[in-house]
């Protein structure tokens, strides 16, 4: 138990005062308009929508009654730019600047504007359960005051004032929270190992590398709830006894970098980061580190090498980062979504969290639902929901009357789930049981026009290009597997190639140094398991049933497999 300074109440009062003040200010307005400032809506022009809404509000003398803010993502990314009006909870989609006058004029009316309205009482919203994204769209991503006024930082204050680090760890362990970065290791156990490890100082790292192609859950958390993320990281630091933290964000997310940096500055200003946080003896600060475009840097030991300013190459584990991580010191490394769950668990208790989900997979999972699906977007669902519910209830099914073929989870480390497993429960064990993984949350739906051999080849090309080259099984093995898959899609593979393919997959899986190589065969193995007939059609009949591959049964010339990306 850390000693607490006497008269530690003052700063807490300060924070409560900030919340009250903000609430008072907010209550002067009858309506709050939140324009989504997430990356997707920004790309669709939400910044100009916000400007024109503010302009119309000012011109029409609504200025004292209606406030326009930048908000976050409601998950309906395909309908951007979106606008949320509080307290009515009206959601508008596909707004243009020209719609601003109509929206403002309609404010006092009972019925929302028909043509822009996106009702929130439909399955897309009703079937979701939001913990990580609970304040989705309804809190300003650039003002800590707004976050505090909506209940933010209460959990951190509770942790540092009312709980000992051990109590925090016990609470997280009891909640059953597992890492959302892919492997699903118990978060509480990991925290305990770091807390118990010898060595000083200790570090906390937030893994915001999000490298799976087709995944953008963590980006949304960093863009829209950077304060929530920081609160989670700070609680973790208190629990494990760390004084310095890093948020490692991939270079492709400049907006996330800006938002998290801004959040850090604001938290420092209110003494929610820095020395003697909230009047206690707990010191902790955070810095952002920007990645530089290497998928392998999502792997924890490679990420640590990258923060140390080196090539992002993994090293064998053990020792795990929990005992020997950054600069050889005990280091806690968790995923963005893992950290974002923490404040809710501390606030509502472990039992509450453990009541959601399945026996072994607690809580919710955020998925980026994309591909051949009617409602694409960002969704958060309780673990244990079936794939069918996600695709047909939330996602609205497959467009153009096509037939569902497979859903891909876990990106290049995952697998394809066929129609016969549509009723699978989405939890760590069930997914692993059919050769896929939960992964970080990419969920790509494919219809009958997708060729599964081609999909396997796609992921293998990705792994081959992203292999860091340190260990031979991964560097050479992925290239060999790719070559066979490429030949298969060209019609030059033979049945003995198929045998060799399986052998190679087995070898790469069992002898690679890190998770990249170990999991690289997964997409191949899972498609071989469920869609073997497609491989056979390519090889024997020289035909692609989906009509994607152009097969020329002449032997291919030597093709340059590993080409430089630069």
């Amino acid at each position: 138990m850390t000693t607490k300074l006497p008269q530690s109440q003052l700063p807490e009062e300060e924070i409560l005062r900030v919340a009250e003040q903000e609430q008072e200010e907010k209550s002067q307005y009858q309506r709050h308009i939140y324009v989504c400032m997430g990356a997707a809506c920004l790309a669709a022009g939400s910044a100009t929508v916000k400007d024109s809404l503010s302009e119309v509000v000012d011109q029409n003398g609504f200025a004292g009654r209606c406030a326009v803010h930048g908000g976050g993502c409601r998950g309906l990314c395909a309908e951007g730019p979106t606008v949320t009006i509080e307290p009515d909870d009206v959601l508008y989609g596909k707004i243009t600047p020209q719609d601003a006058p109509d929206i403002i004029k309609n404010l006092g009316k009972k019925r929302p504007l028909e043509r822009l309205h996106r009702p929130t009482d439909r399955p897309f919203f009703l079937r979701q359960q939001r913990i990580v994204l609970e304040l989705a769209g309804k809190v300003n991503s650039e003002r800590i005051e707004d976050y505090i006024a909506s209940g933010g930082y209460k959990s951190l204050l509770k942790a540092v004032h009312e709980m000992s680090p051990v109590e925090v760890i016990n609470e997280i362990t009891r909640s059953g929270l597992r890492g959302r970065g892919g492997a699903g290791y118990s978060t509480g156990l990991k925290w305990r190992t770091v807390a118990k490890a010898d060595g000083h100082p200790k570090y906390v790292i937030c893994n915001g590398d999000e490298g799976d192609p087709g995944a953008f859950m963590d980006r949304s958390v960093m863009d829209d709830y950077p304060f929530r993320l920081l609160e989670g990281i700070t609680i973790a630091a208190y629990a494990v006894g760390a004084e310095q933290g890093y948020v490692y964000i991939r270079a492709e997310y400049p907006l996330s970098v800006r938002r998290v940096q801004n959040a850090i500055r604001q938290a420092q200003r209110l003494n929610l980061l820095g020395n003697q946080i909230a009047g206690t003896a707990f010191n902790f600060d955070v810095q952002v580190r920007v990645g530089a475009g290497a998928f392998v840097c999502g792997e924890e030991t490679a990420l640590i090498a990258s923060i140390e300013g080196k090539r992002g190459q993994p090293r064998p584990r053990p020792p795990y980062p929990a005992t020997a991580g950054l600069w050889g010191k005990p280091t806690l490394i968790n995923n963005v979504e893992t950290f974002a769950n923490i404040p809710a668990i501390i606030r509502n208790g472990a039992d509450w969290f453990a009541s959601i989900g399945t026996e072994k997979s607690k809580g919710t999972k955020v998925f980026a639902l994309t591909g051949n699906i009617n409602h694409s977007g960002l969704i958060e669902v309780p673990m244990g929901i079936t794939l069918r519910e996600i695709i047909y209830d939330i996602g609205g099914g497959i467009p153009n009357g096509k037939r569902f073929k497979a859903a891909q989870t876990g990106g290049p480390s995952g697998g394809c789930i066929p129609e016969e497993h549509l009723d699978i429960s989405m939890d760590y064990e069930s997914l692993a049981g059919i050769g896929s993984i939960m992964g970080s949350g990419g969920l790509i739906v494919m219809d009958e026009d997708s060729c599964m051999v081609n999909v396997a080849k796609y992921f293998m090309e990705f792994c081959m290009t992203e292999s860091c080259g340190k260990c031979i099984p991964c560097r050479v093995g992925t290239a060999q597997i790719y070559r066979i898959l490429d030949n298969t899609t060209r019609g030059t593979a033979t049945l003995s190639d198929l045998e060799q393919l399986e052998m190679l997959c087995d070898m790469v899986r069992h002898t690679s140094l890190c998770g990249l190589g170990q999991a690289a065969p997964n997409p191949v193995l899972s498609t071989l398991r469920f869609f073997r007939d497609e491989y056979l059609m390519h090889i024997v009949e020289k035909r692609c049933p989906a009509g994607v591959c152009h097969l020329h049964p002449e032997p291919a010339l030597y093709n340059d497999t590993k080409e430089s990306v630069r």
Partner: protein
Amino acid sequence: MKATLALPSDDKRWRMVNATMRRHGYSSSALIEALHTVQQAFGYLDETALQYVAKSLRVPLSRVYGVATFYNHFMMKPGGTHTCVVCLGTACYIKGSPQILETLEKRLAIRKGQTTPDGKLSLMVAHCVGMCWLAPVVMLDDDVQAEATPAQAATKIQEWVSK
């Protein structure tokens, strides 16, 4: 604190690079941050920059070169005035972005990752630009081309480069 090295030239941008390194106390762990600043300021990393960073942080030039070439984000040659990015993320891939890339490579007579000889356009690929519902996505600088077909993308690029 070590004495600062003389800047390679009186180009003001070197001061930014130096400021980044100073902020990190010229520690060798600042290497990637320093290279980020060089790339932001100059658009790419040349030998002068690598040498300057190596000397300032007291790390071997070979390690600086190793790091610079390991990460895809760092460019060792100047890019084109404009950049076209074809998304090869999963959603875009299954909706046909490889065909778009192929068409563009043929039309522009360059491969992915290269720049046209006149220096006008770089053709790049990305693994998911985060707008999967618009797949297949082609980005022309900051413009998003949603649900692009190979022909559309090619026409658009030609228009846009000749602007």
